[in-house]
């Protein structure tokens, strides 16, 4: 029997096991990302600013729903995960641009931002980039492989 013929007598083939594992992985990551985003926006942010609150919450909801869909092995789960990964990546890149242009603005008006400013922005970037740029890139690669 060919290896990719599918489950036979209740024993999953290696390809199916891989696929299921990838789906579980992406689904769980999406759920954790959604929860982290919600906690970050509603608990950690010191001020309410509706563009961030609204967009962030919508993205978090998308992550949670797509995560649930992936874990439930629904076809729409993968589609939503791909959409949310692209949106997250887009937001991450936008945020990185915003941080970089903030540094550019402060450097323009205050002069050299200095070691303190650079350390602060670097820390923010390090906190943000893995979740909003690195993770969606990884998820897009996983999803493509899972196809």
């Amino acid at each position, binding site marked *: 029997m060919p290896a990719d013929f599918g489950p036979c007598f209740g024993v999953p083939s290696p390809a199916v096991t891989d696929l299921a594992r990838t789906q579980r992985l992406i689904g769980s990551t999406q759920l954790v990302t959604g929860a982290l985003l919600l906690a970050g926006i509603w608990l950690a942010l010191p*001020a309410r*600013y509706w563009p961030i609150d609204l967009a962030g919450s919508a993205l978090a909801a998308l992550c949670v729903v797509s995560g649930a869909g992936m874990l439930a092995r629904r076809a729409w789960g993968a589609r939503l995960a791909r959409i949310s990964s692209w949106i997250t*990546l887009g937001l991450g*890149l936008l945020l*990185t*641009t915003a941080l*970089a*242009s*903030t*540094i*550019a*603005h*402060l*450097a*323009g*008006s*205050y*002069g*050299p*931002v*200095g070691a*303190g*400013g650079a350390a*602060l922005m670097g820390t923010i970037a390090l906190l943000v980039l893995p979740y909003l740029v690195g993770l969606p*890139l990884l998820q*897009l*690669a996983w999803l*493509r492989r899972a196809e």
Partner: protein
Amino acid sequence: MPNDRVRRVLAVWALLTLLTCAIVYARARAPRAAMPSAAAQRWALATLQSACTGQPAQKPPADAASYRAPAVIALAWSQGRVLARHAGGARLVEAVHAARARFAADPELRARAGCGRSSLPGVDPAELARDQVRFTLVIDRGHGVLIRRIPLLSNLSVVPLIEGLHAELDGKHAYVTPDELVAHRLFDHVVTPIPDLSLGVDLDRAFELLAEQLGVAREQVEARASVERFVAGNVLPQPYPREARPSAAELERAARQGAEFLLRHMYEDGRYAYLYDGNTGERSDGGMYNLPRHAGTTYFLAQADRLLDMPEARQGALRALRWIIRERLSRCGGEERLCVQGRGGMADMGSAALTAIAAAEVLRRGEDPVVRKLLVGLLEFIRSMQRPDGELMHLYDLAAEQPIDIQKMYYSGEAAYALLRSHEVLRDPRNLETARRLMKHLTGAGWSFFGSRYFYGEEHWTCQAVSQAGRLLDMKRGDPGLDFCLRWLAFQRVLQYGPGQTPWSVSGAIGVGPVILPRLTTVSSRTETAAMLYPVVRKLRLDASPLAEQVESSLGFLLRMRWAPGPAHMLINPAEALGGVPGSPASLEVRNDFVQHAGSAMLLWVEALREGG
């Protein structure tokens, strides 16, 4: 790995980001036109002054005639407020002459007793000096874009002390200068969880000031006016900050004026004015009168008496100690244990320790039986609060007659210093033993954790205690307390600004980033410690030159920022404010301990220099 589509997206994003940053940088950067020559500046101020005196204007120097800037703004101040203004055009000479004509024709300005008069029959000369009209000139050196809609970044958009705001509406121009922003307390507007880290400008109030000048509502300015930042070049009759070398004579003068400031603002009953607002002249404590700071200030007065021979400072210190004895002294756990009662029926370690330090300093200069009895009783209390591991319990519940084993910032270090400082006058070995065990805890087990070499607390009192131990005990190289304090001071040196690291003249200050104005007390407290440790380091033949450079750089900053006379045009009464030390370069408020820490730092360095530093 990302596919080609993702790679293309990333490449386009990187290019766009780079381009955006370049555009943002170029728009934020305001050009800075050169300032007029010193002669042209002197001429401009003298010409403005002649609006009051009525004397004919002098001929401008040759280079003034050719000087141009985007705009020249003349302000007439009295008692910390702007009475009249003139925003002139690009040519300095024309703008100054136009301002002079406008001020000379201003009946309200001319009617001021202090407009051009040095004496008036029947008018108190001090009152006349207080009413003096002071002219300043602000050169608009160039404009930059103002961010208005992004929270926080818009508050940071205006560089404190350097930039103001310019608005244009229907052909009318309005300027709010950095000094006006300071006088209206609009800097350090955004409060962070750490009180000392407030930052940014209050743009709403700044827009109100622009609207007042334009004669419209703030909403009109927000909706229709073109508002920009402008880089301001201040031309003042007396430069501030004023450059000063930290020589012994200069430091003694500054410390003396600081002590005189405190005595001038002391109440009859022996309390100090907790907060003095230099702009309004108001004294307040906001219900927050602080006993450790009362005692710390008393310590400085006693120190000033000892080192500067100021009997009036000793009298002030004694008055302040008698206030504590009369109003706050209590017994904590025994007849012989004296403590200082604070809020909520509690006696705290900080108040007792600093009162003991002040009492010991008074006794170093001369005997006083009441003060000696106070000191002995306070030390009994401090010793009784020690735990078996050396740490102290910091609160005592007077109603329950029980110590409470919690620790608060500063208190243990203050207590260790009190025990050691008192040894010189009491010679009681029990105090030395308590201090030894406490310091072993503070600089050893109390500060031993992963990362302790990269993170430090507020240890200026602890390290003053270590310095005192170095003087009294047989301290050797490699002593753990000494090593700890040298590491702590080296850590502070990393945070110390050098020239050109911030937009402000704050070389020598200690700060955490270029958008936050440094605080003076942070600098003063580190300098107190470094100055006190310096002789110990020299005695042990360790390299003391980094400490000396650190201290002199910090003292230079403190001397530049103290009020001598300070930003006189923004002060309601410069004579009353003389010797004050503000909280930050953008503040006109003086708290009693700001003066105490700065003054003590200066005197400790004077003492080190006298000892052969």
